[in-house]
């Protein structure tokens, strides 16, 4: 819009420019000065009109003042500058040609009204803005409060609904708040828990560090700790928990509360204990089992210098027979009763009884004085077995063999100790059972091979580690060789040549005696044929005969007769070349079933010799019904004849036996002949054949050949 120079419009603009320039620096508008000036221009125009209008419109003048506030001239300095400007220039620029006095007066009134309008508008704006900001603050606080409320409600829901127990206490231990899960776990009402102190919950099973950790936490030296802790419930049961306690601090970091989170682990713990119990106890007897026993034994062996241990290893004698004859149920009941009795033997601290399996039990004693204590323990065990055990109305006499090991900790492993005990126990058993033996390193060394030999036996037979030596049987009448006893030997790769006493009991025990015995029979028969081939069917005194030992196990083996017949036939050897030796003890109390195979063999022409005669309680009357043709007199009878003059009692006994034998039509063979005097004496007493070192030690088959030749040429 263009304005005529110095015309009214131009003057208005010039006045506005002056006003704007004065006020702009004290406004806070974001408009440019030109824009601001454009905002002021209508105000200047209205002031100009008001100046020249008849009458005085004070409201219109007030509105101009208020408009200044609307243009964000809220600094009162803007009013001052405005009024200065109006006062100085309004009449000058807009007065035109009116009365100066009246114009000045009107200008003054305009300024008063503008000031009033400005003040009122500013007051209203200030109040409105104060109200707005207060409202905003209130509203924001409301939002916060609502959010806090929601937050608290959620936390409360989490707290109450949690499956784990949650509790809060102050640092003096006063319980402030607990959740439902915790109350259920403790079996308490809320009122019963509130007001309790954390320290009241001391439990005998608390781990040693539990309360030290607690003290550190409430002192502020620890942020949290985790323990397994037990609590007593009012019903007398025990609650086990996984407990985590945390320290809660305020915004400034000062410790304020303790927060406990607990998980009920009672059932899990019971299950663990049960699993642990089952893993370490024997289901039948409830005694600790091998696992637990080894744990304890190892602990005892690692107990440190100066500590000792004592161990009893018990194996029942003849348990297998009871199991076989009365059945496993009865056997089990017997074991339970034995276990109970053993348990009552080991009640002192440091003593324990365990079942290793089968009928094998161990008792362990530790602590001071084990050397004495283990002997007493062994005695108690042996006497605990004295009273018969009643099973199904029968009184069973139970006996056991006991091996005792006592020694310092730290020298041997558990396995070594147990093996020593086992060996010692076997020694007791070999000595007839129903006794205890004390471990002795030399005896151990002798028997170390018992286990090894047992396991090596089967392969030894396959590998041909056995061989046979022959000891001649000499006719006392003419001194001619009549045959030989086959004696099996084991050429063990590590232990050298082992005699039958070392391995025949093991072979009996494992059943290997049957194939081993068959092999010995085969070999011996083969050898017998070889001799016959060499020396013809007849030597000077008839055919050479081979004596082969038969163990009790072979005796009851159903294949005995058939095996023997087959071997003889295959070798083409007549039965009269074979004599089977059976021990007296194997035949004691033998019934007809057991004697039947022997009888059949005897009928076929095989001679049967009763070995070791005189060592058992022979029922002499019984001799009649046994299918034997030879008595082999035990060497104990001949020992008394080694010196000169011979023991007269021995002479009488042997004479009596010989006479008895001959009256029953039995030949008599004597063993252990070592001197010529002995031989002569026995010949006089009427013995038929003899064997012993006086004639020859056991040796290879060639030796016999040589002896026979000596006979023939002699």
């Amino acid at each position, binding site marked *: 819009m263009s304005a005529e120079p110095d015309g009214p419009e131009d003057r208005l603009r010039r006045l506005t420019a002056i006003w704007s320039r004065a006020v702009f*620096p004290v406004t806070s508008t974001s408009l440019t000065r030109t824009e601001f000036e454009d905002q002021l221009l209508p105000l200047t125009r209205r002031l100009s009109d008001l100046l020249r209008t008849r009458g005085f419109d004070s409201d219109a003048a007030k509105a101009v003042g208020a408009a200044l506030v609307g243009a964000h001239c809220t600094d009162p300095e803007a009013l001052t500058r405005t009024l200065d400007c109006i006062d100085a220039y309004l009449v000058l620029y807009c007065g035109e040609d009116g009365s100066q006095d009246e114009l000045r007066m009107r200008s003054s009134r305009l300024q008063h009204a503008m000031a009033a309008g400005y003040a009122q508008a500013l007051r209203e704006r200030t109040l409105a803005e104060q109200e707005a900001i207060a409202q905003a603050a209130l509203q924001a606080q409301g939002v916060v409060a609502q959010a806090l409320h929601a937050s608290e409600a959620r936390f409360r829901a989490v707290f109450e609904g949690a499956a784990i127990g949650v509790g809060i206490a102050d640092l003096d231990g006063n319980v402030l708040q607990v959740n439902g899960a915790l109350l259920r776990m403790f079996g308490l009402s809320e009122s019963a828990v509130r007001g309790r102190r954390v320290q009241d919950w001391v439990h005998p099973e608390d781990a040693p560090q539990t309360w030290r950790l607690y003290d550190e936490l409430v002192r502020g030296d620890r942020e949290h700790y985790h323990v397994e802790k037990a609590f007593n419930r009012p019903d007398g049961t025990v609650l086990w928990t996984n407990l985590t306690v945390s320290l809660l601090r305020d915004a400034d970091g000062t410790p304020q509360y303790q927060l406990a989170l607990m998980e009920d682990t009672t059932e899990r713990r019971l299950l663990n204990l049960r699993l642990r119990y089952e893993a370490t106890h024997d289901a039948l007897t409830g005694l600790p089992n091998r696992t637990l026993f080894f744990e304890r034994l190892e602990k005892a062996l690692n107990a440190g210098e100066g500590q000792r241990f004592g161990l009893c290893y018990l194996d029942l004698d003849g348990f297998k027979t009871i199991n076989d004859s009365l059945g496993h149920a009865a056997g089990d009941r017997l074991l339970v009763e034995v276990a109970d009795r053993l348990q009552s033997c080991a009640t002192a601290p440091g003593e324990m009884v365990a079942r290793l399996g089968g009928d094998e039990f161990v008792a362990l004693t530790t602590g001071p004085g084990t050397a004495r204590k283990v002997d007493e323990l062994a005695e108690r065990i042996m006497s605990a077995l004295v009273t018969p055990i009643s099973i199904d109305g029968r009184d069973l006499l139970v006996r056991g063999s006991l091996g005792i090991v006592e020694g310092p900790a730290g020298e041997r492993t558990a396995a070594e100790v147990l093996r020593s005990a086992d060996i010692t126990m076997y020694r007791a058993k070999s000595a007839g059972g129903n006794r205890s033996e004390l471990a002795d390193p030399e005896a151990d060394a002798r028997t170390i091979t018992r286990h090894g030999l047992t396991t090596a036996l089967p392969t030894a037979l396959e590998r041909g580690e056995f061989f046979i030596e022959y000891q001649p049987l000499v006719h006392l009448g003419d001194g001619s060789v009549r045959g030989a006893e086959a004696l099996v030997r084991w050429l063990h790769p590590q232990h050298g040549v082992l005699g039958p006493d070392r391995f025949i009991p093991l072979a009996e025990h494992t059943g290997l005696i049957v194939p081993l015995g068959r092999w010995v029979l085969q070999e011996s028969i083969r050898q017998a044929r070889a001799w016959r081939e060499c020396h013809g069917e007849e030597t000077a005194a008839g055919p050479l005969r081979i004596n082969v030992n038969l163990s009790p196990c072979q005796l009851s083996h159903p294949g005995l007769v058939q095996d023997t017949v087959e071997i003889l036939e295959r070798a083409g050897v007549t039965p009269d070349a074979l004599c089977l030796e059976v021990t007296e003890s194997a035949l004691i109390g033998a019934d007809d079933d057991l004697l039947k195979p022997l009888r059949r063999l005897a009928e076929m022409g095989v001679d049967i010799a009763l070995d070791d005669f005189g060592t058992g309680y022979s029922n002499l009357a019984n001799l009649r019904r046994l299918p034997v043709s030879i008595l082999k007199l035990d060497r104990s009878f001949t020992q008394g004849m080694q010196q000169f003059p011979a023991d007269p009692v021995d002479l009488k006994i042997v004479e009596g036996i010989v006479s008895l034998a001959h009256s029953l039509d039995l030949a008599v063979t004597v063993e252990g002949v070592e001197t010529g005097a002995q031989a002569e004496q026995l010949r006089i007493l009427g013995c038929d054949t003899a064997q012993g070192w006086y004639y020859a030690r056991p040796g290879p088959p060639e030796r016999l050949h040589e002896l026979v030749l000596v006979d023939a040429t002699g």
Partner: protein
Amino acid sequence: MERPAWAPRSIDISVPSVSRIYDYYLGGSHNFEVDRQAARKAMEFMPGLPKIMQANRAFMRRAVRFAAGEGITQFLDIGSGIPTFGSVHEVAQAVVPGARVVYVDHDPVAVAHSQAVLTGNEHADVIAADLCKPQEILASPLLEGLIDLNRPVALLLVAILHFVEDADDPYGAVAELSKALAPGSMLILTHASYEGIPLPAERAEGAVDVYKDIRNPLIMRSREAIARFFEGYDMVEPGLVQMPHWRPDSAPEDEDPYAFSGFAGVGRTA
């Protein structure tokens, strides 16, 4: 225990607020005595503080008009504070009726006030969020309802970045926001600096200390450090300059000397 994200921090109006202090500098009455005390104290050191705020407002007004003139119709103003007069929506909607404006502030009172002011304006709204958590801003359903991030947006960070300490990674926050913007978007930014203040630095530090005392430290950055916020943007002429020099409507020499404190600039993404 950390405060969950959905629970706002508590409100304590006995603690001065930078938005209300700003309002006081601009002659407003949306403030409490605590705010005014702090403002007066700062002004003892720098009497021209209101002029700096005024220059900020004037720059923002020119920049918004520029952006609208360049075809931008969506505005995201973070750190908007208390809308008094000449706010972004007023300026933008005056040029482009229906321009979309989203304000963001972390001061709950400022947010509540903004909500009151914006009642009935269907094209503008406010989000309570923090510049330092850009994902909270970008993921806001309210933002999604008003702003289409596939189209250019003018992002305003006017007089806010100097309240973010380096430890809170302001550069990372700006980069993350920028990454979310469509090509052709603009960054409108002002930042406080010791450069350009018509006072010895020791005096200016007095004012800075006031902000430290009210636990809203003012981080004065160099021009170079401020320029780094524009990484990935092409600077709109005349670049990063003192506020009165940015596309002035009137002669800069007429401006108050305090108006030259700090820097302002506009960048545009390719």
